[in-house]
């Protein structure tokens, strides 16, 4: 009996078993067990997903900890008077479930990069920096700076509490919908790469 035929026979037997009604377990047991297994699976899945959505997880790798995280520390989104802190996923992972899963699937490329050491040194990071930043600018431009607006909503802004020039520019460009946050606020949380040729503002 050749190998192919044997595998085929096993597959057919498995298929027949799966197709057949349960012989030993009652319908009640299967329903309850399926429900419990579903709860456990979904709970576990979401717990694991949220575990990858923390600052601790992101800065577990030297690529993030030594480069972008160090730069974030001095900015207003990390150290400020009110003690509210934006963590990595607040800006870099969509909060909406479907978009979050899509972003997490994209992140498998980053796992690949981690395993094969695409960014092992500071120099390699600086070489890649413009490409990496361009990805994030394009994403925020495409979703109209959604991750900014999760906290900074134009309709909730009290323009009178802003400095006059900030209020004026926000009203002129953000209020009319002509520009979105990332158009002017590139480099708000990390240092900018060489910006020659990149439109700002």
């Amino acid at each position, binding site marked *: 009996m050749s190998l192919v035929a044997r595998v085929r026979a096993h597959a057919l037997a498995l298929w027949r078993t799966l197709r057949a009604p349960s012989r030993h377990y009652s319908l009640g047991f299967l329903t309850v067990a399926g429900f419990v297994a579903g*709860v456990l699976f979904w709970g576990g899945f979401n717990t694991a997903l949220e575990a990858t959505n923390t600052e601790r997880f992101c800065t577990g790798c030297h690529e993030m900890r030594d480069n972008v995280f160090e730069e974030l520390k001095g900015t207003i989104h990390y150290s400020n008077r009110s003690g509210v802190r934006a963590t990595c996923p607040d800006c870099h992972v969509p909060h909406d479930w479907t978009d979050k899963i899509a972003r997490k699937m994209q992140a498998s490329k980053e796992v690949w990069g981690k395993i094969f050491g695409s960014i092992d040194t500071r120099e390699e990071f600086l070489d890649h920096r413009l490409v990496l930043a361009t990805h994030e600018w394009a994403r925020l431009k495409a979703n109209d700076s959604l991750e900014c607006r999760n906290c900074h909503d134009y309709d909730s802004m009290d323009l009178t509490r802003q400095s006059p020039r900030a209020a004026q520019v926000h009203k002129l460009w953000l209020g009319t919908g002509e520009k979105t946050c990332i158009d002017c606020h590139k480099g708000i949380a990390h240092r*900018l790469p060489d910006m020659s040729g990149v439109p700002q503002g």
Partner: protein
Amino acid sequence: MRNKPLAVAAGLVLLLSVLVFVAGWMFGRLGARHGPVPAAAGAPVPVDARAVFVPGGGQIDALRRGVPVDQEGHPPPLARVENADLRRVRAYPMQPPTIPHAIDGYQVDKNSNRCMLCHARANAATFQAPPVSVTHYMDRDDQFLATISPRRYFCNQCHVVQTDAPTLVANGFRDIDSVLAQPGGGQ
């Protein structure tokens, strides 16, 4: 009933859902009843942040704010950067204008120049900012360049913010207009 097992399975799932919901609700109430954790007793005594500052107190070293050299004074409170966006008068005609707004976190290095985002000639109208003077586009041979001259690139070399800190050293400077306005000043 044509499909009794299906109805039973659906009923079971519904019942379990209700049970899980009730269990979650009860656990949630249990956690909420504990209330906030009481504040820790014996908090450290707040440090007096006021400086011993005597303006014009006759001390030689104004930076020590009158504190004897063998003692350590409390640091003065941090001064706030004036952010009113009102242009200030120049003390003399060639003075680089001071910056009337906060510039926290502005990146000015070989990669990017945050000041020029608004103050470049091309962007001035967009942001309603005063464009930098044409002299800033000239090299040392007075030839005009397309972009800001490298020798003028680092704005903070000449232009600085102002804070509300009290002046440490008295200054008797008077600008030329007040000198001229004096009786017999224009002679």
